[in-house]
């Protein structure tokens, strides 16, 4: 990374003047924390006592047998407290907030996992908390909204634009410019103005550091390939950082193929041909936008991948060829989820399942003495309404109808 936050030609900090001083403070606090070995120790300690770190690396024996190729290992970020990798970043930023002395945190959320993690951190550290969430996502991730509110956070449904993640980010920035003095914006992914991409990736690197050791202990050597889903890119950056400097390990990021790349209804920025360089939400990256530079609507069955931009660090790693990008469609995701639940008794989040889809396509082509790692960024419980709907599950429907009637009577 360069002084002004660029990775190759991507990144930077395109921010309104009102935030300039706050970013100077944030950059300084982050530099100090990164240079201080005690900070990482405090972070690891917090993550091993309040969350479930190190998370296990699970050998998926049945899936391996089923596909008959490489040994499939799953990095279990779903076993973090609050059920996703998002907690890693949030707890790290929480420690920084304490150092900076701010009293209030805000966050955007798509799938609700980042909002959940932020509400949890705010409750634990005694901070006021407001979460911005697109109205569409409030609908599709209702259980997370319930829990955020129960933990004392205010959840604000965002009704502007496409009413998804990008609009929640805009609204969080509007709050931040209004309340800069008291408030820290806990950005949820490796996007946004510098230092966020680097900072979020640093906290998430704990995933890759663990996985790198675990795979050698369990399999005897590094993996042939590592798969991660890519929304903004934080879980992918997290697991990839354990292997970036080992050129023998191939890294694969999987984006939301939605209804197919040819349909236009997807969120594929780094594979496919629909994205182009742009500057929005404070940083330069590949965006899904039209020729005038207006952002387009995106689509994914997974709220957490339904986003127009992507980490500038990943745009750089795509451009220099270190990471390969693929996509998985909504239908492929539902099928892979079904298989994983039945064969391994594991329920990945819809976001994470995108990585499973691509791994399943490639595992049979690799030798039996090779291993691959799938980063399971989160657990699927939050998606119960979406998944039950996709499976068109009759007994679930009956239950919902009966519950609805019950509430109706009161």
């Amino acid at each position: 990374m360069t002084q002004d936050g660029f990775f190759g030609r991507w990144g930077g900090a395109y921010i309104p003047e009102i935030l300039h001083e706050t970013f100077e403070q944030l950059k300084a606090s982050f530099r100090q924390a990164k240079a201080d070995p005690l900070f990482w120790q405090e972070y690891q300690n917090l993550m091993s006592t309040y969350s479930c770190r190190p998370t296990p690396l699970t050998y998926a024996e049945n899936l391996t047998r089923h596909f008959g190729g490489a040994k499939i290992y799953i990095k279990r970020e779903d076993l973090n407290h609050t059920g996703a990798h998002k907690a890693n970043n949030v707890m790290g930023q929480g420690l920084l907030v304490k150092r900076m002395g701010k009293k209030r945190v805000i966050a955007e959320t798509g799938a609700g996992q980042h909002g959940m993690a932020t509400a949890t951190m705010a409750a634990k550290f005694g901070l006021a908390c407001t979460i911005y969430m697109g109205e569409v996502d409030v609908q599709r991730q209702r259980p997370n909204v319930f829990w955020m509110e129960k933990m004392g956070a205010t959840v604000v449904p965002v009704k502007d634009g496409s009413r998804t993640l990008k609009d929640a980010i805009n609204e969080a920035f509007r709050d931040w410019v209004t309340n800069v003095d008291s408030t820290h914006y806990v950005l949820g992914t490796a996007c946004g103005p510098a230092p966020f991409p680097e900072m979020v990736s640093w906290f998430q690197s704990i995933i890759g550091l663990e996985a790198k050791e675990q795979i050698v202990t369990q399999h005897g050597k590094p993996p042939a390939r590592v798969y991660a889903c890519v929304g903004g890119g934080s879980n992918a950056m997290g697991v990839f950082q354990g292997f970036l400097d080992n050129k023998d390990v191939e890294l694969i990021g999987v984006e939301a193929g939605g209804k197919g790349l040819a349909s236009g209804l997807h969120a594929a920025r780094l594979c496919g041909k629909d994205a182009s360089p742009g500057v929005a939400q404070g940083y330069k990256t590949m965006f899904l936008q039209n020729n005038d530079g207006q952002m387009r609507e995106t689509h994914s069955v997974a709220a957490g991948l339904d986003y127009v931009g992507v980490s500038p660090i990943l745009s750089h790693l795509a451009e220099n060829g270190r990471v390969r990008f693929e996509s998985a469609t909504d239908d492929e995701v539902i099928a892979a989820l079904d298989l994983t639940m039945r064969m391994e008794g594991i329920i990945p989040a819809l976001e994470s399942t995108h990585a499973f889809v691509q791994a399943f396509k490639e595992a049979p082509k690799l030798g039996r003495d090779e291993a691959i790692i799938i980063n399971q960024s989160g657990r699927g419980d939050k998606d119960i309404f979406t998944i039950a709907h996709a499976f068109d599950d009759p007994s679930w429907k009956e239950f919902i109808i009966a519950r609805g009637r019950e509430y109706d009577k009161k």
Partner: protein
Amino acid sequence: MVLEKQLRERLATKKILLMTHIVLGYPSFDVNREVIAQMVANGVDCIEMQIPFSEPMADGPVILKANQDSLAAGTTVADCMAFGAEMSKQYDIPFLFMTYYNIAFKYGEEKFFQNCRTAGIKGLIIPDLPPEMGVEFFRLAREYQVAPVLIFAPTSTDARMAELNSSAAGFIYCVARRGVTGKQSDFGEGFTTYLARCRAATKLPLAVGFGIRNSEDVAAITGKADIAVIGSETIRLVDREGPQAVGPFIAGLR
């Protein structure tokens, strides 16, 4: 640059100048024409025309909605360029474009400046492009003589203001408070101290914007700044009462 010269000529006969804001294509270019005609007829000194963007991060609800509605109606950057050329040909006041950096970036920076210059646009306000991110942009601004207006905020330190001043031209846009466009501001004691800091940091004319809604607000900054910026208030007025209400509103401001 020519923008500063034009503003200074007007300042020779007026204690405070008025700059207004419109969102292009909202509710339509025809209404934009009517509103601008009324503004000019009632003495507005400078108009900033916002090219709509899908992610207007620094704008509050009123301007945000105007951006979205304009885009939904099909407004393109090419329409905005053509409209800018039409207005600056028709009226003898400086016209500026306000927009977000992605619009100029996607258009091609050099082509954007060329076309602005051809269209007679005198300055640009890009709230998400600090000078350290736009070295080439600020160089082109000088080459094409389209003034890059920069923003001071109450959170800017004296050192930062000095740094911004060295890249700015035309005038300095001082935002009156923290936050986004469209909410009320308090022009009290803290504000006076802030404006004094702005004045000390630059020789360029000072504009004050964010939350100026009526003649009292304009009076409160007269003598302390050179230009009062009326933003969201005229959009609200047109929404509520139609374009013909703009003339009397402007006439009553000073």
